[in-house]
């Protein structure tokens, strides 16, 4: 669903919404879209303000960051 949304094709988005309605229900689909919207906000706050990783996250995320290539993001701030 998230990738359908960021892809921007309204037909594909509607297909995913219908699939979610059939599988998890309308309320869950709405809440999923709400979470997507929230992280459209939080990512913009973090990246617009130069928010660094929290101290407790730096070490425990090292393998994850490497596996997913997160350290290569322009927004990487280590």
């Amino acid at each position, binding site marked *: 669903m*998230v990738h359908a949304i*960021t892809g921007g094709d309204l037909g594909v988005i509607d297909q995913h919404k219908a699939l979610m309605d059939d599988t998890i229900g309308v309320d869950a689909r709405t809440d999923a879209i709400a*979470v997507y919207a929230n992280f459209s906000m*939080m990512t913009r706050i973090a*990246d*617009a303000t130069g928010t*660094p990783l929290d101290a407790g996250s730096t070490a425990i995320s090292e393998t994850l960051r490497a596996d997913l290539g997160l*350290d290569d*993001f322009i*927004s990487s701030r280590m």
Partner: protein
Amino acid sequence: MNTHVAHDQAAPAAPTIVDADIRADLQDAHASFVEALGDPGTWWTGAERVAIVDEARRAMEHAQRPPWEAPSTITGMIGDGHPLPLWAIDAVWRITNHPGTTTADWYASIIEQSDADLTDRDGARSYVELVAVVAPMNAIDRFADVMGLARLPLPAPVAGAPSRHAPESSVQRHWVPTVNMAGANVFKALSAVPAASAAMRPVSASHYVPEDAIVGDLTWCRDTLSRAQIELVAAATSMANECFY
């Protein structure tokens, strides 16, 4: 879908969208945030805060433009007499369309322009308030867009001067100044403008989970999505936005 525009009798200038299928707390959070946009802020007037949202909405219509095409560099993109300074318009567009491409150098150039442009307000703190308007409106508008709802109409600006309330803050680990406080770094990010930070929090709580449950109750959910499913959507969105944090 039972969508319609309703006008609050007590505040006719601030219409709200009501949808019977959407949680009331979500609709209330959206309506409250948008209604307050018309009020004078900490560093921007009500008219300027509404203009910031207008620019964010205009930016979304140009989402395919690359990040290096700042609107101030394109002939005819910004009309004469625009209520916002050019640096603010450029920042709104970059944050709206390409948040994952912002860098410390980009931020420094924006603040350099703001400090040169503004004579009666603090550039860095004005920028923080701008972020605190643009980012929640991205959430509210993108939610409406995906749900197939009309975007909330913007309120009429209320006359008055910004409060210019500036608690003690300094540049520490963020690019922007922050106050000394406990909590996750992303919740400190807007702390130099407390009113703006406070306005954002109900939007987050209604979309995601209550703030005290983010790390305090890892099983909290609304009985629709499990917490694990919520975090999966959060992670996928952050990845799609190439957000390192």
